[in-house]
């Protein structure tokens, strides 16, 4: 019995019970669809975050208050970025004393209310200095950025992200207009280029004002949220990171590195952490979806067992007219593989639609990779074989005499 013949037989067996075959196939279809969608969400998230972190610049070190290895020391620790112990003087000291540093950007940011005429919104206000543009590779598009003079006098000047402009001003030109941040009037002097999501914040939704103004006039603090350090070359990153750690430890009078009240991280460190997280997420999502695939496989086995029982007399007849064991085995195996493979293909389409839908509705980039397509194919074929072998073997081992007598 050749392959085409057994395919035809399998096809006819399935068509004979259209609804049943479809429902069985649906189990695999949903399973494969779910796996493909989930993996595409995971890969999409991972690639999105990776790109954003890359966008931060590869020669950037971030110093934030709080400890990195909180679980090592006893007692309560503050979470990263929430401490109050990094100061402008720390920042200046880094710029002066650490080798290979080309620019240091001290920053303080906080959420607060912004008002223009009758419109208001709650957004991120970043107190930065003139080097911010250089360190973050994020530049002003229209007008001017904040100057050293603005920093020195604590000027009430603001540079707006693109989203802020469209939210507050619509089509109007905002430069020269006055907005109120926490009821303090600020003159808009520039508009930033569009950068979108970067790291964990959307820079287009930020307003940039002089650091001194942010600390003293708006929020009344004297500490920093972060210090971003630009290092001349990537080779000097480790050296610079160590020097910064040593410098800040001596400035903060800490001798045990585990007790450090700050942490220094490079983009690569963050990338590692994030890809670990998204990798785990992808495996988790895929794993949950794979369970539904397994259930689909059991559905196939169930139906194949029913089919074998139902068609016992047919099996007996086929044997009587000359079918060998392996002909019967091939016929039923072909049916289950046909079912699961067709389910796999439809599931793949469903998964692609699903991930496109999520990309459209959720604004979440999804990637249906070649590997997940292959995975879906191989997996569904394997499920067809795995769950089809037992019923098919049962069919092939039927005694023709008893099978023919079966009522």
């Amino acid at each position: 019995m050749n392959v085409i013949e057994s395919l035809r037989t399998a096809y006819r067996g399935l068509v004979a019970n259209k609804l049943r075959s479809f429902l069985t196939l649906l189990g695999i279809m949903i399973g494969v669809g779910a796996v493909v969608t989930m993996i595409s969400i995971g890969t999409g998230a991972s690639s999105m975050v990776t790109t954003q972190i890359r966008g931060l610049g590869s020669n950037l070190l971030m110093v934030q208050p709080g400890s990195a290895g909180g679980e090592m020391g006893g007692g309560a620790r503050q979470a990263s970025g929430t401490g109050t112990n990094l100061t402008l003087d720390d920042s200046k000291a880094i710029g002066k004393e650490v080798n290979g540093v080309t620019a240091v950007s001290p920053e303080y940011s906080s959420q607060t209310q912004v008002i223009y005429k009758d419109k208001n919104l709650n957004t991120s206000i970043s107190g930065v200095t003139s080097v911010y543009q250089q360190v973050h590779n994020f530049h002003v598009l229209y007008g001017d950025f904040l100057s050293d003079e603005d920093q020195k006098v604590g000027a009430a000047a603001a540079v707006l992200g693109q989203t802020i402009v469209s939210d507050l001003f619509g089509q109007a030109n905002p430069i020269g207009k006055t907005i109120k941040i926490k009821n303090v009037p600020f003159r808009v002097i520039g508009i930033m280029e569009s950068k979108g999501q970067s790291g964990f914040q959307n820079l287009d939704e930020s307003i940039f004002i002089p650091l001194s103004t942010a600390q003293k006039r708006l929020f009344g603090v004297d500490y920093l949220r972060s210090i971003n350090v630009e290092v001349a070359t990537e080779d000097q990153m480790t050296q610079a990171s160590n020097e910064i750690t040593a410098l800040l430890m001596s400035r903060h009078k800490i001798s045990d590195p585990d007790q450090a009240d700050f942490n220094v991280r490079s983009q690569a460190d963050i990338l590692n952490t994030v890809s670990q997280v998204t990798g785990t997420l992808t495996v988790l999502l895929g794993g949950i979806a794979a369970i539904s695939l397994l259930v689909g496989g059991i559905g196939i086995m169930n139906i194949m067992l029913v089919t074998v029982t139902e068609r016992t007399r047919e099996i007996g007849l086929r044997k009587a007219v000359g079918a060998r064991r392996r002909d019967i085995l091939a016929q039923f195996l072909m049916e289950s593989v046909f079912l699961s493979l067709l389910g796999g293909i439809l599931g793949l389409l469903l998964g692609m639609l699903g991930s496109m839908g999520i990309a459209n509705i959720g604004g979440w980039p999804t990637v249906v990779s070649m590997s997940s397509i292959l995975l879906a194919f191989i997996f569904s074929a394997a499920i067809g074989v795995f769950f089809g072998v037992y019923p098919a073997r049962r069919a092939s081992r039927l005694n023709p005499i008893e099978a023919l007598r079966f009522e």
Partner: protein
Amino acid sequence: MDAKSLIEVENLSKVYGEGDAAVEALKGISMNIEQSDFVAIMGPSGSGKSTLMHLIGCLDQATSGHYGLAGRSVETLDDDELADIRSHEIGFVFQQFNLLPRTSSLENVMLPLTYLRGPSTDGRKHAAELLRSVGLEHRIKNWPNELSGGEQQRVAIARSLINDPSIILADEPTGALDSKAGDEVMAIFKRLNEEGRTIVIITHERYIAEYSSRIIYLKDGRIETDERH
């Protein structure tokens, strides 16, 4: 013993089960069936006629004894070789027709070709001719559920002929038919025999057996009478 006999059965016995539960269904059967013979096997239920049929049909192996079919010793064959013999040498006709549902008469007749290892011929044309020869040329595309019992059995007869077997085995072929349809079916067997086919039928009805030229009567696993008429 004539070496040219199509079927040679010598001291054939069949035991089902083991130990105390063993049942001896056939207790040493010996007979020959010649080419172009028409044999009816009769006997009460439990006489072993079905068992004999299964052995002759190569659906089962004897416990002991010799069975030669068309010059080959069947008792030495394994499962796959038995399947090949069934495919090439034997055409079955069953009491319950055993046609595939939702499958046309033509496709049903062609089914055994699926398992025929060897050069494939134009089965479609041959199958159509066979259906015409049993008077069903107008039923070629119908499914079994659209046919009467007699028509279904005639499709089954056409199916048994598609591989041009040496012997046709019919197990109670009229058991599920009314007497008119039964007579039609037996007339076909009669004609096939006149054309040179070797036919063995099992029946418990005397008037059906009368169509044959030789009646073997089994009782308790042994041949009681074996006579031509």
